[in-house]
């Protein structure tokens, strides 16, 4: 009884509380980073409420939240009321539910219940279809966005929704192909097992599958609708995209969900490609034996995820946004073939019959081949340069 209900419930409460707080502070960090990159200081005024203590602006998330809480929740008359209300709920619920299978560390040596097993840092431990579950839910999150855009019944929202659906369909493929390589090599869909696999070999999948990493990271940026792929809600073109007609708590629900996608994707990048909680000579690789080790593994995982999130935020200000046709040609003409190539390569290198003959059981050979193929693929893509339609003004010889 305890194991079935009490522990997961406590985990869920702690996880959702922590996630909401962390998201709020990550928004502050994002604003700070944006300010620093633009030579500004960023929000530094709001500190402890009702005092003059500023704390470098650490009270800003609270103020932002309160602002959204007290704003009028306006529903335009021209919307489809049911779907309009449902959309942010769907988006946030699926964004949160994804965290049920994402490990926040390994285990802690805290024996609860009859089984005597360590306390796992996953809400649903040992979920054998973890990755499938994540993919299913992230697809539902896209429905939330499309619903929001469509139910709003105005042109900007509709265009934002359309762009989202097109972009998500296009980038779900490379995202899946990037993951497939990892799944093929590790032989499991369980995120915990994938981490253990990397920890045991000491060789993160980022090193053995560079092509898969590139494909996955690019697709992840697009899936999270972050710059340079934030076409669904680019302010310069679409006002706010799919959430143009939303205000108050519904709007912040959308914004939180969107931010959480970024955090989820960061977790996935770290877990699938950067060894999760593993770090050489620091965390060990077997089951957790002591409290120190368990906490260290949590710390290492969080540090890595934080690093990836910082990278996300830096990228936002580093490169210009793609045009929509460029976005599409990147997905279908570059990322899809490279993902397929990565999948085929991993299948070939792991096939026992072939591995025996070319020696790819040895990790050195494996690395050499995969990096050579990755560089070659990149080079070929650069030479062929598949691009979108040429629509720049063309020179015409004067007719007179």
């Amino acid at each position, binding site marked *: 009884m305890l194991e079935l209900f009490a522990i997961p419930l406590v985990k869920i409460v702690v996880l959702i509380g922590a996630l909401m707080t962390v998201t709020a502070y990550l928004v502050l960090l994002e604003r700070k980073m944006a300010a620093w*990159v*633009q*030579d*500004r200081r960023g929000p*530094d005024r709001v500190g402890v409420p009702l005092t003059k203590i500023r704390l470098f602006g650490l009270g800003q998330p609270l103020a932002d939240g309160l602002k959204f809480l007290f704003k009028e929740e306006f529903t335009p008359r021209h919307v489809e009321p049911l779907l309009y209300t449902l959309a942010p709920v769907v988006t946030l619920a699926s964004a949160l539910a994804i965290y049920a299978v994402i490990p926040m560390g390994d285990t802690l040596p805290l024996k609860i219940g009859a089984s005597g097993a360590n306390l796992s840092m996953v809400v649903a431990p040992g979920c054998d279809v973890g990755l499938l579950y994540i993919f299913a839910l992230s697809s539902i999150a896209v429905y939330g966005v499309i619903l929001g855009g469509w139910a709003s019944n105005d042109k900007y929202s509709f265009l934002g929704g359309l762009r989202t659906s097109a972009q998500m369909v296009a980038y779900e493929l490379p995202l899946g192909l990037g993951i497939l390589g990892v799944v093929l090599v590790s032989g499991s869909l369980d995120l915990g097992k994938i981490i253990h696999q990397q920890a045991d070999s000491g060789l993160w999948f980022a090193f053995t599958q560079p092509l898969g990493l590139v494909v996955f990271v690019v697709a992840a940026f697009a899936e999270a609708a972050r710059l340079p792929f934030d076409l669904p809600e680019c302010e310069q073109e679409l006002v706010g995209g799919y959430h143009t007609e939303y205000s108050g708590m519904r709007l912040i629900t959308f914004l939180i969900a969107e931010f959480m996608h970024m955090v989820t994707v960061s977790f996935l990048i770290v877990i699938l490609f950067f060894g999760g909680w593993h770090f050489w000579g620091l965390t060990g690789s077997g089951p957790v034996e002591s409290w120190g080790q368990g906490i260290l593994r949590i710390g290492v995982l969080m540090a890595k995820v934080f690093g990836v999130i910082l990278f996300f935020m830096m990228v936002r200000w*580093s*490169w210009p946004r793609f045009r929509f046709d460029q976005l599409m040609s990147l997905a279908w003409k570059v990322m899809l073939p490279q993902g397929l190539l990565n999948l085929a390569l991993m299948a070939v290198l792991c096939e026992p019959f072939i591995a025996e003959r070319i020696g790819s059981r040895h990790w050195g050979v494996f690395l050499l081949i995969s990096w050579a193929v990755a560089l070659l693929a990149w080079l070929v893509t650069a*030479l062929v340069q598949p691009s979108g339609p040429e629509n720049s003004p063309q*020179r015409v010889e004067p007719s007179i």
Partner: protein
Amino acid sequence: MRTDDPSIRWIEEPSLGLSGRMFLPLFVQGLTTTARHLFSPKVTVSFPEERPKVDNPLIYRGVHRLNRDAEGRVKCVACFLCATACPAHCIDIVGTESPWPDREKYPASFTIDELRCIYCGMCEEACPVDAIELTSLLDLTGRSREEMIFDKEKLLSVYDQTKDTEPMPSARLGGTL
């Protein structure tokens, strides 16, 4: 515009090299630029604690002041040139006969509506005796509209407040610079 217009000068887009096609320079330049700015000194002025630096207070256009002459009298001769020049019509002067022998008129009242003023500096340009000037005081605030209508005493007090940091420009007209 017609694309076959002979007066158009066509510029060929420079072709990317191999590294450019591999996105490498773009990748490196983008990240290094943002990383450099991330740690570079910030330009924001934290206003109430930190005062913005005014390059040259003598030509800055802030709150007005009415200058005093060497004997401490108001320099204004109530010629109405500033009120005439003012595009916002924010200066109101009531001139009367001067009690002093060196001029005919002086302002009995001199009011400027600081909320109406657009701080263009035309009054300062127009004044023949350098009586009205714009100071470098830039944070002008008040709690009511009435408070923001500055009378002669207030404008003279602005002079007393700023005469040491911002001397009057023209010595020929009795200035201190």
